[in-house]
């Protein structure tokens, strides 16, 4: 079968300049235009072997206005925030913060496959913190599995049981630290509620 080549040329009116503006307004992303495209970030990244676009390519896409391609990239979800790229970037770009910003935009615009675990986990995590002020890993995992792959419960329970037998599963929150106070604070700073 012959390969199909798709030139990725975009004309000015197709480019989304608002993306680079948003990234530059993010703490840590101000210097994104100073990127040397040296690839140190991808070289340092323990995830880059599993990525479709490396962090260097993503930054290139951000700068050039390839918004859709950047936020549709699987790479942004692979970032485990280990900060290898951030400490090594010779241009002082906090690449981890750029990756967080891309995740936020993708989540805000709903650009991810249904039941995809990374954004589901983030939302469940947020809801739990807003509810009790703390997270409970046991319920977080249960909720994540229910919303992404309920059948995985069939294979995950042995680990749960081993943790339970060693007294390492807590079923209730460890305290209600001013839940209402916290919500009041969060509402007043929220970019999005």
């Amino acid at each position, binding site marked *: 079968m012959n390969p199909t080549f798709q030139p990725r040329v975009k004309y000015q009116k197709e480019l989304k300049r608002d993306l680079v503006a948003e990234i530059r307004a*993010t*703490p840590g992303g101000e210097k994104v235009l100073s990127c040397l495209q040296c690839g140190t970030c991808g070289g340092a990244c*323990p*995830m880059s072997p*599993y990525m479709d676009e490396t962090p260097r390519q993503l930054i290139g896409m951000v700068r050039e206005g390839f918004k859709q391609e950047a936020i549709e990239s699987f790479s942004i*979800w*692979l970032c*485990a*925030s*280990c*900060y*290898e790229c*951030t*400490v090594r970037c010779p241009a002082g770009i*906090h690449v*981890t913060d750029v990756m*967080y*910003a891309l*995740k*936020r935009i993708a*989540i805000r615009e709903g650009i991810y496959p249904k039941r995809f*675990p*990374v*954004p589901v*986990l*983030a*939302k469940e*995590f*947020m809801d739990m*913190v807003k509810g009790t*002020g*703390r*997270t*409970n*890993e*046991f319920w977080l*995992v249960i909720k*994540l599995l229910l919303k992404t792959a309920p059948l995985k419960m069939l294979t995950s329970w042995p*680990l749960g049981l*081993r*943790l339970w037998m*060693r*007294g*390492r*599963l*807590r079923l209730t929150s*460890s*305290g209600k*630290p*001013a839940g209402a*106070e*916290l919500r*009041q*604070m*969060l509402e*007043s*700073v*929220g*970019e*999005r509620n």
Partner: protein
Amino acid sequence: MAYTYFPGCSMHGFARHCQDSVYAVFSALGLELRELEGWNCCGATTYISIDENQALTLAARNLALAERAGLELVAPCNACFMVLKKTQDYLARYGELRDKILPALSKVGLHYEGKVAIRHPLEILMRDVGVKALKEKVKRPLTGWKIAPYYGCLLTRPYPLEGGFTLDGFDAFIPALGATLVDFELKDRCCGGSLTGTIEEVGERLVYIILEQAKRAHADALVTVCPLCQLNLEAHQSKIIRRYGEDVRVPVPYFTQLIGLALGIPEKLLGMKRLLVPIPRELSEGVRVTQAA
């Protein structure tokens, strides 16, 4: 000396053995921990994927509470440690964040000036107690144990250790306990974090890389300083052994569990039985024999 203690959610959940051993070791060294009253989740590396201002507000509330308590703040989870440091740094550097977050704090009667010192317990042992003093307190040296140190990402990234310390320097706590230090070059490589629960194949691959290296270096134990690394590196071993067809089983104790053993603290107080991959009997019995001699 007393410190304010920020447990974080893990220490109250699946990492209670880590917490027990932190308390036991601090108390044996004459250091007091007072749990921060009313603390909340630091936001970890997750909340920020949805809302950055809210994520930093979560951490800022803890910093304000700690500042009011007046002591240095100890966070035994690398993620909490880094997130609190990052929040302090960003609030100092970005006026627009201060303008949003400080009013939210004052709305609930809290005030934050950016003064609180954020510490990791390992860093307290190395800087405040010191290797020499630690060595003097060892009652049951871990003779014959080969230990590989694993510190994870967030203890030194993005913020380097203070006081000119390096991770290679931190390794000194292992020989101080009477054990043999295994040279371990992946000591600050990522364990995959929450990816082991979301994009499992990749998360487990990262865990495998670390375990395989520890095994190849003939480590009897891979010592961790973060409850998330600790869980990640031990909880997925059986699955990885099946998937990769390779024996990468290695005990992954939390560092204060090993220090506690060497200080002669009873195993029960250190939560040794709560480890999913137990320390082999011949090693822990070796410790007892030395004590009897």
